[in-house]
């Protein structure tokens, strides 16, 4: 299989317009002859289903949740970036492009990132037209806030529920298409295999989670928008159901997987409090607009925070990074937090630092802070029992987002013709570190504004002919899925799925977490292999496959995580440099900043599946920087 990024020629700012002009079209009357399957109903999936439905294609939309509206984009808090320059503060498409490339530590593809910045403005228009209730000023115009890694205010927001509002907007457009008959939704359905016929993606096998029925669905093209694999770490800010199954099984059918080791750790999450903790909760990056991060200057300072005077506090982000202060990018903030905690300065000697809004409350008043962050403060209080209006929040980094994912070309098509990947499940736009408020932007740009164009280009050459579910390729995939389900139920061992998942999470957090070394990675890989072998011998799943069986669902997802984990750790071992979120302790500057090696590693690592227990084959996509100058990132 080959990899061609299909980046159009010409100047960066003209690439997308020229490319659009050259893409082939499908006549309106012919569009209804094409079936498209979309997996996932988050921002990318819902917007793709809606916009493809609007064009007249027959769309089948699958999600494992009980309703499309519940996909985990719903939980995104802080906002969405767009280069509108409504603040007159020097923003532009170019600046958003540059911030994103730099924020990603020069490990993303320039052409894709420029297009993303270019499309950002239209996303806001679309969302407002749908009735998304963004925050507004008294004059009725849209309001903005700032996010990390930028020096402008370009983030549009709806309190701390921006993801919810944008998703409900996209879902409303998708529901409109359902009412018009172009989109059919399949909630409570999980894709368990991709079907490839004559080298093209032609359908899927999905399991009905209520009845257990395993069935094939055919299409002319398949769009994966199934989100990230952060749950591989067990404890993450992802929803409990978020998983890598769709992309992993596509990988095993020939789609390349790129940069699996680029997993983002978000600096401001509520710290782990108990052994039974089932997930971690984010406190939005938006809070760093008004919040100050600090620890007591002296170790073992057990005074309550209000008793610690200014001179005994270390506002370490402000002192380390005066230019960006508390709004440094996530990877930089996370590492700085880890550093002070490792020095033993964490609050109460634990892994936690203060995120303090006391100054902002004094300066702006409680009402303003409540309006901006009220729901986050409430959430914090519910979880910890402490009110951030009175006591500074305690926070610590946690796994949040995956920049890595399926490799795609400029058309968002994977290495399997007819298989597209949108949103978090692809690798394309964020390099080694995503800037805050850019995930929503990417999901919607992919779904509303890119896939409608590149899909027609693909279908125009394909022909209308449908494939039958009776073909051997479908039967074989169905049998394989059924066999796996039977196997989970028949092992009858002594350990639960969650037990395996927790152990995998710990192995990864210890070895492939915020800091990685050759030794930690090799240890992790050995442990993953042992754990995976035990999983298939000692797993215990009760019940049957004929009703809702949540343990059985989890078993499938964890079995995929156990395979992906090895690729992730292997990629981290191979990438013998530090960049963005990927911090190899062997490669750091004197003041503990990440040290890139552009000579050797200025490429996207794309892996091709070679079969069970065989090492994946590495393909390199060299990254060429024509506009952005490769430089050491500095936020000082």
């Amino acid at each position: 299989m080959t990899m061609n990024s299909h980046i159009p020629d010409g100047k960066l700012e003209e690439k997308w317009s020229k490319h659009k002009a050259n893409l082939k079209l499908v006549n309106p009357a012919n569009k209804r002859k094409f079936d498209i399957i979309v997996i996932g109903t988050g921002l990318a999936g819902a917007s793709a289903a809606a916009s493809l439905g609007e064009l007249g294609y027959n769309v089948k939309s699958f999600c494992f949740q009980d309703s499309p509206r519940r996909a985990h984009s719903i939980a995104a808090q802080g906002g969405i970036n767009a280069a509108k320059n409504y603040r007159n503060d020097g923003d532009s498409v170019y600046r958003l492009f540059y911030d994103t490339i730099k924020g990603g530590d020069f490990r993303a593809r320039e052409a894709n990132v420029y297009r993303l910045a270019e499309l950002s403005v239209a996303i806001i228009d679309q969302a407002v037209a749908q009735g998304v209730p963004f925050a507004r000023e008294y004059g009725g115009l849209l309001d903005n806030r700032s996010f990390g890694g930028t020096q402008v205010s370009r983030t549009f927001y709806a309190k701390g529920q921006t993801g919810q509002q944008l998703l409900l907007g996209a879902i409303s457009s998708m529901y409109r298409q359902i009412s018009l008959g172009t989109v059919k939704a399949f909630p409570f359905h999980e894709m368990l295999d991709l079907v490839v016929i004559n080298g093209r993606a032609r359908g899927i096998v999905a399991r009905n989670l209520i009845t257990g029925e395993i069935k094939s669905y055919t299409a002319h093209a398949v769009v994966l928008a199934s989100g990230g694999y952060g749950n591989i770490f067990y404890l993450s800010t992802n929803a409990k159901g978020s998983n890598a199954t769709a992309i992993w099984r596509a990988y095993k059918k020939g789609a390349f997987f790129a940069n699996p080791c680029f997993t983002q750790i978000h600096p401001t999450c509520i710290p782990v409090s108990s052994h039974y903790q089932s997930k971690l909760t984010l406190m939005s990056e938006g809070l760093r607009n008004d919040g100050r991060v600090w620890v007591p200057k002296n170790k073992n300072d057990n005074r309550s925070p209000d008793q610690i005077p200014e001179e005994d506090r270390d506002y370490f982000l402000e002192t380390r990074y005066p230019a960006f202060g508390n709004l440094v990018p996530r990877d930089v903030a996370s590492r700085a937090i880890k550093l002070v905690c490792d020095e033993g300065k964490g609050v109460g000697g634990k892994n936690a630092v203060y995120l303090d809004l006391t100054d902002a409350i004094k300066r702006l008043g409680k009402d303003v802070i409540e309006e901006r962050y009220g729901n986050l403060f409430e959430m914090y209080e519910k979880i910890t029992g402490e009110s951030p209006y009175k006591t500074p929040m305690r926070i610590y980094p946690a796994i949040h987002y995956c920049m890595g994912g399926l490799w795609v070309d400029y058309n968002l098509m994977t290495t399997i013709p007819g298989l597209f990947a949108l949103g978090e499940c692809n690798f394309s736009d964020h390099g080694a570190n995503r800037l805050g408020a850019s995930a929503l932007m990417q999901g919607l740009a992919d779904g509303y504004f890119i896939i409608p164009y590149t899909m027609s280009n693909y279908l125009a050459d394909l022909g209308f002919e449908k494939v039958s579910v009776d073909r051997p390729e479908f039967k074989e995939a169905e049998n394989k899925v059924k066999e796996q389900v039977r196997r989970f139920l028949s092992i009858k061992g002594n350990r639960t799925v969650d037990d395996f998942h927790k152990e995998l999470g710990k192995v990864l957090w210890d070895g492939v977490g915020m800091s990685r070394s050759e030794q930690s990675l090799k240890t992790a890989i050995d442990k993953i292999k042992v754990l995976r072998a035990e999983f298939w011998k000692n797993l215990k799943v009760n019940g049957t496959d004929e009703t809702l069986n949540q343990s059985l669902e989890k078993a499938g997802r964890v079995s995929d995580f156990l395979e992906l984990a090895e690729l992730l750790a292997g990629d981290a071992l191979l990438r013998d440099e530090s960049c963005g979120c990927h911090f190899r302790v062997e490669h750091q500057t004197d003041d503990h900043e990440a040290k890139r090696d552009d000579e050797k590693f200025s490429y996207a690592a794309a892996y091709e599946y070679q079969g069970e227990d065989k090492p994946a084959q590495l393909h390199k996509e060299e990254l060429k920087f024509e506009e952005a100058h490769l430089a050491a990132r500095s936020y000082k």
Partner: protein
Amino acid sequence: MKFTLKVWRQKNAQEQGSFVTYEVFGISEDMSFLEMLDVLNEDLTLKGEEPVAFAHDCREGICGTCGLFINGRAHGPLTGTTTCQLHIRHFKDGETITIEPWRAKAFPVIKDLVVDRSAFDRILQAGGFVSVNVGSAPEANGILVPKKNADEAFDTAACIGCGACVAACKNASAILFVSAKVSHLSLLPQGKPERRTRVLNMVKTMDEEGFGNCTNTGACEVECPKGITLASIARLRREYCKAKIKG
């Protein structure tokens, strides 16, 4: 801490369900309610029994998936809280806790504590949208929305579709849910041309789905985890009357 849990178990939609009593031990006050159920389920699995099916996903109070009727109240004893955001510190050590699914004709039980809320989706599909195709949106700041309206629209748009309003209502009415979407959109200038058909279609679908009628008991408002108030029901009624009269 330890608790006695009386949990509703039901194999599927067809079979009768009943309460089964379980004891859970070693629960800490910082755990969430759902984490206590995780502990129960791990225990049941190791004993060779089927774990209790319950719906959950984000566990941060926003996806609207979770929903348990705890000690006779939707989402448990606190107000303004989803089940996943309820923590054990609000219960007394040794307490007996009764856990049931949402009960409403329009929300048939799928298994144990999981119910089918697809009726909500069908109501939204009947009109809970602004008809705007991608590509035809005007410049965002070309549409001015007074801050007060935008804020009020946001407050109702914050509905997570969990169904607590239906579960809390003795009539199993979905009026708070429907009114939240109707209020959100009727407070904004966008989608104004379809304002009347929207409310008529959504209310019609609500009735067809088998939800009960509203008798103003206000139970929905008390249990709504997102604080949506009866004011939005009043707005729905105004919108409905206007639509009926003006046609």
